């Protein structure tokens, strides 16, 4: 069975924000009211975190894109009272929107704060409804959503390789962020496939996992020469 994982090379990432835009368009993520956005209700499935280090003028900035970490041992699934968030056999942490009751326990449990809540009915002008991605359902008010590693793309890839009568190869399945990164900083693949890029990169001496001590075993690995 595959185990899907992402490796983000922070030595290459410039922080341009392309991943955020690609993700928002691919997944039909709602744009919330400007005032609500500034009070912390903005919805990004992948966001850019900046941390300044050092004293002026010797400043360094640590910047990293933060999607859902798809933990092997996810804290969020354990607290869901209705089994709306779960981990599947291939290690993807999924979200079943119509089962979600909006209690937001999972948002509290997630140590990486990657889940977002639909405070309002998402609204789009009629014109924009034409260009929704037909592969991804639009959410309703009162449900939690988060990065899915573009799981809808996996479904398509599986059909594709099935028809061609072959196995999934490294690079067949790419989430939108990894596909369009201009710095080629996001790698995606199967940790169980020893030929895959992510398998080898995740073993690199530069590899770091966020808050490893919690035992969540995140499947998003950062590469960085810096501490």
């Amino acid at each position, binding site marked *: 069975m595959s185990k899907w994982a992402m490796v983000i090379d922070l030595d290459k990432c*410039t*922080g*341009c924000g392309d991943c955020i835009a690609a993700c928002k*368009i691919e997944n039909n993520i709602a744009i919330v009211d400007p005032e609500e*956005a500034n009070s912390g209700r903005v919805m990004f499935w992948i966001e850019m975190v900046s941390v300044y280090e*050092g004293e002026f*003028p010797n400043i360094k900035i640590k910047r990293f894109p933060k999607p859902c970490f798809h933990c092997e041992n996810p804290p969020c699934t354990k607290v869901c009272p209705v089994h709306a968030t779960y981990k599947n056999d291939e290690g993807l942490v999924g979200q079943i929107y119509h089962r979600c009751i909006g209690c937001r326990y999972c948002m509290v449990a997630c140590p990486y704060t990657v889940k977002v809540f639909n405070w309002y009915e998402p609204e789009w002008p009629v*014109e924009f409804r034409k260009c929704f991605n037909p592969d991804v359902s639009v959410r309703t008010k009162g449900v939690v959503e988060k990065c899915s590693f573009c799981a809808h793309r996996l479904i398509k890839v599986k059909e*594709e390789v099935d028809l061609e009568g072959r196995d999934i190869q490294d690079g067949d399945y790419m989430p939108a962020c990894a596909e369009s990164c201009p710095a080629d900083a996001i790698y995606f693949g199967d940790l169980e496939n020893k030929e895959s890029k992510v398998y080898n990169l995740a073993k690199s001496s530069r590899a770091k996992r966020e808050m490893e001590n919690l035992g969540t075993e995140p499947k998003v690995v950062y590469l960085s020469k810096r501490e």
Partner: protein
Amino acid sequence: MEIKRREFLKLLGGASGAIALGSFGCNQFIDVPDKIIEIAKNGAGIESWKNTICALCPGGCGIKVRLIDGIPVYIKGNPIYPVNQGGMCPLGHSALELLFNPDRVKSPLKKIGLPGGGKWESLNWDEALNIISKKIIELRNEGRPHQVVFLDGSNQHGLMKDHIERFMKAYGSPNYFQFPSIKNDAVPYHLLQGNSKIPSYDFLNAKYVLSFGINYLEESYSPVYYTKLYSYLRGSTGEGRTRFVHIDSRMSLTSANADRWIPITPGTYGALALGIAFVLIKEKLIDANFIKSHTSGYEDWVDKNGIMHLGYKNNVLANYYPERVFQITGVQSETILELARELGNNHPSLVLGGDGSSNNTNGTFSQMAVHSLNALLGNFEKDGGIFYVDETPLKNLPHFELDDIAKQGIEQNPFGNSLDMAFPFADFSIQTLIQNILAEKPYPISVLFIYKGNPLFQTLNHHEFIEALKKIPLVVSFDSFINETNEYANIILPDHTFLEQWNIISNVPSVGFSHIGIQQPVIEPIYDTRSSADILIELGNKAYGNNTKPFPFEDYVSEIKYRVEGVYNSGEGAIVTEGLKGSWLEFLNQRGWHIGTYDSFDEFWNLLLERGGWWNPIRKKKGFSEIFNTPTRKFEFYSQVLKNRIDDIVKKKGIDNSTHDIEFVLGRLNIKTRGDVIFLPHHEPIPYDDGMPIYLTTFQPITNRDGHASNLPLMQEMFGFLTRHYWTSWVELNPETASAYGISDDDWVWIESVNGSIKAKAKIHPGVMPSVAAVPFGLGHTSYGRYAKDYGVNPNSIMKNLYDTINGIPATQSTKVKISKAK
């Protein structure tokens, strides 16, 4: 009949939803029954992909648009297009919001009521075009075609420029201007090298890259191209990795990613460059051979009249010792020593400047100082150095014999020349345009065409520009939206968005190979819009009574097809293709092979549409005499080009070269320096206001660029994704400055100049120089649709009306302000 999805897919013989159907017809591969097509349309949806070029910034990235049943739903980078190699920036993704934007102009509009009053009535196309053609034919008949001015703000590097130029020339007007103008950007190179080309930089072979203010990962000509180069270099491990050092007043995206960021006082980049030159010269870290053989004005010299002139070396040694440069720039003298030693000892090393270092009153002189370091290091036409790409082998437009009216018209003084002899090297300055319209000199303007762009939003001289626009009898705007500038138009002709349009993008400046990209419609126009290029063909031919035709083409696509034949005929380069690297092409070329033989031009053209573009990574090696077109055929530290121009102005002004005349001219040009130093790279102080303690600097976030992306909701939301300011402006302050004024994070702050004040939320972080207030540009629209209007503030609205003294670029970094916590 029920068909399961799986069976349906098998029937189509492959690739899941990704059914490779032709884009216009549906059954190119196999014969699919109509019934199944219908089911597919209501069910899974038929997917197809089309290649085109993104036009949301000048970068010219190749993109692939995903269409479901012909409707674009997603955009990704074209992996085989060499400029971006599959990469994109946030802007590109939101192109769908441009196409389906609810605020698009859906039919021609005519102003009713007062200019700027926001009242419009719809016209049909015939009515709209009749008004315009009647007016322009009348002007021609009266022998006044030169009174038509065409402003092109599309900021695209392609064939549209030649197209508009042909229209204007045939019509009889010398007044076609692009803004921002790349010729303006190239003025510092022109003064030193006599060559108005924007150079390309061989990052891949350089060991050390020192950049002055140029935010190449975010603001410059092609951010994705540079991001690709940068991340490739950063990804390589080992000792020899290129080191990036960036100098900027604010920690921009480029500074944040550099190995080292050097904060500097705004407007003093030139002084720092010359401080580095001081150390290079003192420590003999210069390329003495290059300087001796290929430069002039380095040492003191004697002219043909026996007069002694100051050289670059002695000027630098006398005036730019590190302690003094520290006083000017705020950069420690030890740091200057370190930078110079790193630069001089890591061969090959590159120096580049722009953006923050050029948008000042002293911008041209600063860029000359920055670029002079490349001459000290002999960085021309070598690995890891500066080079110039070849022109694309496009066919020229067919020759056209102008009639007498046109010949007379284009002989008239161009409207872009300044009245008071300011900006001697400006290709175009908005300030000059405003003044000339208001003064009706050298002649009044009867018609103004504006093709895209929003100069009124960007200008520093808002009120006078509005008065100027009101003064012109007919202002016609070709655009897809009503923005601040178009509010003052009499007629708006709605253009297609780039996703519905034909165009060719060619040779984006600073990209390291010659290339063309095909912009093709991915969807039929969704509203009653027309291609501006086609309208110009119609108007241009009509002006000649359709007897002889300036445009012997049915439409713009036939014209670009005609011109691309030149590329086909040349046999050079190759259509972009998978897995074809520049080095491999070069290898084949050396052995007398070339990629791609096509049976016919049609085959070439179809493949071009399918793949998205053509490129030629093989560059003809250029001799120094080709890249140095100065009077001495050398790199001129002492700019004869500038000297000759200023002498000309003085001569025109007075009878002899009296000191009085020279003083008068230099005063008008706002040049404080005197003597030979004027013509050497030097630091020219900026005329700040007394009593204003804080430098106001601006930057353009990648999600908005020059303010044109404010009508895209996703880009508005992402405007401050790094600082978490959505749909709003903010001001970045150093903790030291903030505490001096009692300002905390998220406080509202008043920023006040002599011209007015704006209010923004404080973002306090150490990534900005003390005494600097950095405000993002792009928001603060008073028009431009529901997503743009009334969000954030426009820092340009409080700036002093200052320009680069030489090339007339708006000096957006030269205003000082007061700040205070808003109650």
